[in-house]
């Protein structure tokens, strides 16, 4: 494989990682997942850095990536500590619970509410059984409803 093709592949992987991370960051509300997405974006950038470094035959980019990984590790430690405190504060990690920096006279943003988990058995639609009745494991069935 020639060098240009390799660079292209690495840049595509980096861009994919960055894009997936960006979408995750914007779309997910759980702060840990958001943090993971941010890490993903970081790694996307790192991959492209490695690609360019190799393309230019210069170790600087790879050195930088090693530093990025080290810094990301520290950052992860701090972020997790923050998340623990935030969880202790609100009992949840839903990011919409922290929106006090909005304009004074704006109403709080309410996202689509996640329905509260209920203990009662959901009513599943049933079809007229045909053929052999599959063997239903009650424990498994219960678990599925919670996914």
């Amino acid at each position, binding site marked *: 494989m020639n060098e240009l093709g390799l660079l292209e592949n690495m840049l595509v992987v980096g861009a994919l990682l960055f894009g997936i991370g960006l979408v995750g*960051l*914007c779309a997910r509300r759980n702060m840990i997942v*958001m943090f993971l997405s941010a890490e993903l974006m970081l790694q996307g950038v790192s991959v492209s850095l490695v690609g360019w470094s190799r393309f230019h035959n210069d170790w600087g980019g790879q050195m930088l990536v090693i530093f990025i990984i080290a810094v990301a590790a520290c950052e992860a430690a701090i972020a997790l500590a923050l998340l623990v405190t935030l969880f202790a504060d609100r009992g949840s990690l839903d990011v*919409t619970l*922290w929106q006090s920096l909005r*304009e004074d006279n*704006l109403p709080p*943003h309410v996202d689509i509410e996640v329905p509260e988990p209920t203990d009662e058995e959901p009513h599943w639609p049933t079809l007229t059984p045909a053929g052999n009745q599959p063997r239903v494991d009650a424990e498994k069935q219960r678990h599925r409803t919670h996914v």
Partner: protein
Amino acid sequence: MSDPLANIRTLLVLVPALPLLAAVVTAVLGPRVLKSRAHWPVVLGLGLSAIVALMLLAEVNRHSRNMAHDSKLAATGHVTLWRWTGIPDVLATPPAAAAAMEKAHTTPPRMLPFDVDVTLRVDPLTALMLSMVTFVSFLVAIYAVGYMHGDRSYWRFFAYVGLFVFSMTMLVLVSNFLLLYVFWEAVGMCSYLLIGFWYQKPEAAAAGKKAFLVNRVGDFGFALGIFLIWITYGTLNFHDTTLSSGGVLPGVLGQIRLGDASLYVPGGLATAICLLLLVGACGKSAQFPLHVWLPDAMEGPTPVSALIHAATMVTAGVYMIVRCTPLFGASPQAQQVVAIIGGLTALLAAIIAVTQTDLKRILAYSTISQLGYMFLGLGTGSMLGISAGMFHLLTHAFFKALLFLGAGSVMHALGGVIDLRQFSGLRRKMPVTCWTFLIGCLALAGVLPFAGFWSKDRILAAVHERAHAVVAGYHSSFPVYEWLYWVAIGTAFLTAFYTFRAFFLAFCGPERVPAAAHPHESPNTMTLPLAILAAFAAGIGLTLEAGSWFDSFLAESPSLAALAAHETGPAGSHLHVAVLSTVVVLIGIGLAAFFYLGERTQIDRLAMWLRPVYEASHRKLWFDEVYDLLIVGPLRILAYLLSLVDRFLIDGLVNLIGRLPVWLGAVLRPTQNGLLQSYALAMAIGVLVLLGTLVLF
């Protein structure tokens, strides 16, 4: 001494400087340091100023005697303090273009020169005015020490008085129409401040406003007159100015113009200038139809009424017309208007004064009436008439100040009561006030040896002479001056009547005072000025009349010298005028004695019998009502409409501009929702946009 006028020049600057210094010292130190001693700087300053002014008078007199006839016009000292502005007579178009235009027979647009020198000058007219102003002010200031004693803003009063005397002396000293206007306004402002001195009293505040507004009407005319003078004569300086280019710019009242009367523009333009100046003089000197402010001005402290609204400020109009005599000389029609206004005012004010019951108001109307006499004298346009007007101005200043201070003394004794219906027979309680007031009354009425007789008699004689004189270039089918002569005689009768009516009501008859008052003779600081003024009121007329020093001295004034040279010989004997006026005055006094000494039953019957006349006089000929209806009312409606425009249109626009950013902000506000992810999204979109533009362009 190398410069014979050096003395005069020093004195000239000192006269206004001393009151100004006193006013500043009082204003700065008064409220904290001087307190109840706040009168000292002003009394001292005015006293010194009066001495300086008298020295100046003597010096000017000495000089004008020494001068040969040819250089009489030069008998005037100038001090140019600084040149405020000197825009030379330049062509607005470049010279080359101007030459081309002249070839094409069109006149290039020319800019007029605009020179304003801050120049003080003195001549006999100014010296006389200065002496009178500073001397009377000095006496009034001494009087005010007693009268204003214990007032809350004692220092403020004296600071204003000092400022007023400064403005008034500058008004008569300056040698430029613009500066004349400036100090004209300055005395008006002092008058406003002093009328409204007790501004907590609504009447006083309203009277101050009224005086200020009515004066604005006159000042507007005066300003227009000054513009017209500038356009016509190209300068506002009285004196001739040496230009930087070496030429001499003839001043409006400078020696070049005075030497040659043909340099004054005749005809309609001259009449327009003079009438506009007359409007200004009418405002300041309270002449019909702008006289309505003076009676209300009596709400101010009495020393102010005496000083500003009787003796000095109101004579500014008379002074201005005398100063502009050459201008008025170019327009006999304007002089006739001056005489008519004067005569009419004298008569109307005298009619109103007859039935007033407020002592100060009677004196105010009599001031208007006497100023009318002065205007009448000036309106004759002869040297005799003008010097008679000035003579009357001087004598009137003394006896009217005396009368006002006497009235103030009465007010002081009765705790502020001045209504003649509430007291009588004060002669035993207040002998000094009574006797000095009597002397003032005799002078005002014009009884033989007293001051008023001589000056009033002169005016009557001048009008009489004018009525029978043939004036070149002036023909009238209607004997205006003949009529005015009889108007003046009638006014003399009314003056005698109302003066002695007031005297008899206040000082004669049974002793009767308001219940709350404890009448007593005023303190020495008040009676001393009364005595001095009484001496002047009694003697100054005879002193000045004897030896005809006054006429010849006044005639040395540059403005009047040309006129005086034209006058042929001494004024003819006017014994019959004197006899007639004396008889009329004695009848007036006799009638007053008949009606008001004793039972006073006849007067009610007379008032019933002359009901309409009495009512008209008592209601001041409905001047205030008519002005309210014709001027104040429509203006109020206009003001209301304009306030609506202001409130809804202008304020609406302003509020709209204020609301606009709020609305714009409301559009953008939802973006600041405090959600982390929306900010992240915005950042991502921003990066995308940047990248997009980078790729596309």
